[in-house]
């Protein structure tokens, strides 16, 4: 267990790091970033939590089983979004051509399915980073 200063500063910083990661995920279509970068930031914040507060404390908050399930469903989410275009009678993974309103470019809720996909990818990448770390450092 690291000393008091590291623990206190980490506890102070973690919400801001995670908020920034979620910001990067949500603004992937307007500013640099996107699902992969933002998900990596959220995942790395959880890695920082493990480094400072220990593996057991993180396993109590986010069990390994939960992160694996979120991981599976994040990937499934992308494929499921692809079926939206198919159900509307057009091609797989179609966005504008499937008749989905793109909204006003430059606004937060615009660009149709891109926001939905980016959100799913972000959650998936964050849980993948966490699951990989769990698997690599857990003792048998």
């Amino acid at each position: 267990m690291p000393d008091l200063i590291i623990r206190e500063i980490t506890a102070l910083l973690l919400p801001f790091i995670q908020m920034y990661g979620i910001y990067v995920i949500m603004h992937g279509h307007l500013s640099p970033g996107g699902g992969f970068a933002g998900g990596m930031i959220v995942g790395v914040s959880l890695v920082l939590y493990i480094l400072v507060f220990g593996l057991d404390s993180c396993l109590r908050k986010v069990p390994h089983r939960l992160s694996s399930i979120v991981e599976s469903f994040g990937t499934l989410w992308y494929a499921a979004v692809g079926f939206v275009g198919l159900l509307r009678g057009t091609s797989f993974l179609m966005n504008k051509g499937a008749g989905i309103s793109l909204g006003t470019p430059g606004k937060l809720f615009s660009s149709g399915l891109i926001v939905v996909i980016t959100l799913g990818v972000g959650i998936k990448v964050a849980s993948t980073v966490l699951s990989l770390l769990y698997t690599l450092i857990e003792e048998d």
Partner: protein
Amino acid sequence: MFDNLPVLIVVTLLMTAFLAPLFIKKFRPLVYGVANAAVAAAACASAVLLRYALHTGPLYVAVGGWEAPWGIEVAITPLSSFVVLVVTSIVALVMVSMPREQVDWPSQKVGWYLTLVLLLTAALAGMTMANDLFNIYVFFEVTALSSFGIVAAKKERNAADAGQGGYFEGNVDIE
């Protein structure tokens, strides 16, 4: 008419692969059955595509509706659909005997193993049909990773070393 079928072959196998590790603990025989059925369905679909390609001519699908230089194109020629048919039917036949071979495996390991086999099949099928260099590269990575995992799944200690050797040689090839 068959515009979405080539992509659906890949995506169906992928979705089955994502779901396999979640349900393996409670419904082990069912997961075996569904996985085998998905591969068999892929084989049937590729047979349909082969017939179409032989009778009507090659089929070029623009995934997502974007034409070739801007989007990704999938090519169904007689050769590519035949290779997909061969791959998927071999995997379907192999998977029939899998439950008997893996009786003494723990359920979780069976789930991961099945996932990797399904991903390998999907990636081989997708790589054969792809008509876009970068798409081939991405499918190649799925093929490489899943086959290293399958090689390293054995208990013997040489298995991990073999996986490592494959990793280095494969990566040097790519770059």
